[in-house]
């Protein structure tokens, strides 16, 4: 490797630092679960619906527990505590990081998205248009159906659960569901599932609005290349780019850090809510 190449490689790593960190986290979490099932490792047992961390700390999917409430079930304390821990973690600290750092479906939909852009399938005018608010409708439907049927309705159809359960306990015909999501994102709508439909993502969008970890944008440093908006899977949350400095306040931001990586001007970066820098008020007219 010549010096140039080496630098290029390091630069590449640097430019994908969050992406790699996320893939590593997503894959390791799944591996820990799989090891927990096959070899009885006591680090993470169960699956993303509910698990035991180090054999003591219960964790549970708060959206699943919410549906159970609507279905009329009074779940045991373990699951309640577990759901509380997860809820508080994302609501107060992580933001919607579940989607970009944990959920295995994210790897599938990101791959579909990457392929879509690489192969030029993606054209604005070819898109089927549905609103990104569909996910909130899906939440309402999940809860209503849970109430009517007396069953946690989304839990019986969730492709996310089918995927993570399948990876740990055996997939069966579950791959067809995963393929369906992949094709939907590849051909029908860009970021279709995760960015428009998924009620679990929607749930985390709603609850994680107050979270501590936030992306911050500095208009003063921005050169308006719009790379961040182009790469963002929830591009509507970057509405302020090119207009004014501000935190990304929408809960729909998944804290994936793609925008941070692609920015060549340090204009967009991870920050903590209370650390929001006072940026010089600048106008780009004079630049």
């Amino acid at each position, binding site marked *: 490797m010549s010096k140039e190449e080496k630098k290029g490689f390091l630069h590449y790593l640097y430019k994908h630092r969050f992406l790699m960190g996320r893939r590593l986290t997503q894959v390791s979490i799944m591996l820990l679960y799989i090891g*927990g*099932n*096959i070899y*009885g490792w006591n680090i993470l*047992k*169960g*699956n993303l*619906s*509910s*698990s*035991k961390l180090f054999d003591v700390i*219960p964790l*549970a*999917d708060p959206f*699943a*527990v919410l549906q*159970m409430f609507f*279905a*009329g*079930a*009074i*779940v*045991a304390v*373990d*699951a309640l505590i*577990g759901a509380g821990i997860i809820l508080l973690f994302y609501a107060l600290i992580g933001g919607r990081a579940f989607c970009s750092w944990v959920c295995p479906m994210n790897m599938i939909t990101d791959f579909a998205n990457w392929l879509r852009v690489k192969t030029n399938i993606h054209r604005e005018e070819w898109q089927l248009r549905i609103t990104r608010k569909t996910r909130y*409708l899906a939440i*309402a*439907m999940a809860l*209503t*159906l849970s109430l*009517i*049927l*007396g*069953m*946690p*309705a989304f*839990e*019986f*159809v969730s492709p996310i*659960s*089918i995927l993570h*359960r*399948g990876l*740990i*306990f*055996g*997939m*069966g*015909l*579950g791959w*067809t*569901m995963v393929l369906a999501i992949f094709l939907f994102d590849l051909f029908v709508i860009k970021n279709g599932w995760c960015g428009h439909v998924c009620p679990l993502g929607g749930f985390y969008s709603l609850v994680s609005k107050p979270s501590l970890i936030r992306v911050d944008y500095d208009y003063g440093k921005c050169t308006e290349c719009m790379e961040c908006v182009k790469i963002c899977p929830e591009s509507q949350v970057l509405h302020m780019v090119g207009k004014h400095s501000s935190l990304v306040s929408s809960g729909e931001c998944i804290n994936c850090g793609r925008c941070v990586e692609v920015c060549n001007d340090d204009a967009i970066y991870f920050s903590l809510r209370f650390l929001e820098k006072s940026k010089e008020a600048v106008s780009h007219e004079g630049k």
Partner: protein
Amino acid sequence: MSKGRKPPVNESRRKFLVRSMQAVGISILGGVVWGAFVKENTYDPLAIRPPGALPGDDFLKKCIKCGLCVEACANRPTVPYKNGKKMITLRLASPGDNKPLGTPYFIPRDVPCYMCEDIPCVVACPTGALEPDLVSSLVDGKKSLDINKARMGVAVIDHKNCIAFWGLQCDACYRACPLLDEAIYIVPSRNPRTGKHAFMVPQVDPDHCTGCGLCEHACVTEKAAIFVLPREVALGKAGKHYLKGWEEHQEINGYEPQEEKKEKGKSPESYLNSEDLLNE
């Protein structure tokens, strides 16, 4: 609107109405399909559940599909091996298994429940879908786990194909039963065909049978002649018109056997029919 001209109030209101109706339409269409699938998928009267499972729909309501019970079963120290492969009782239903998705079940003919004394599957359950109270009994005034309280199903014998009923010598199921002589007992009788041999046929007592399926697993016939069915499916019900007048606690006064009321929730099988499990 892009022309910078505000649409007349009427038009924007109409647009809003149309958008709302579209949302309603899609919700109803989606809701019906989604609901129908859930209804269809959760209807499985033949699934055999782990010990301590709440009855019927209550189980499906509470189970979060985490598989912790399955892992506890797979990783218990006493798991037997066959041809170098772990004999794991519980499975988590995946698409294609035709069981309510993600819920634990077992197929006794393949791998029965080995009736672990510490019942690790029940201990692992975080939601109470597997309820320890259903598999506990009082020992010296203290609640302790008792696997013999489990009612996963009940064994049923096919009298036509069980070879003991042909007069052949077989007691495989009887020997396999962990509650030998309680859940399965042997009834001898004269074999009129040969005149000098005896029939030694197995009988199941549903009051004691746990539904573990060790008998079904052991049965020597090609397709098991003794098999576990859910209790709601396999057992009849005499109803309150018929009383065992000769049994002490069933004095006939009117239609209602008095004792039965008091015993509700205590006798091993009555919990299956009690509706207020959740409030206990």
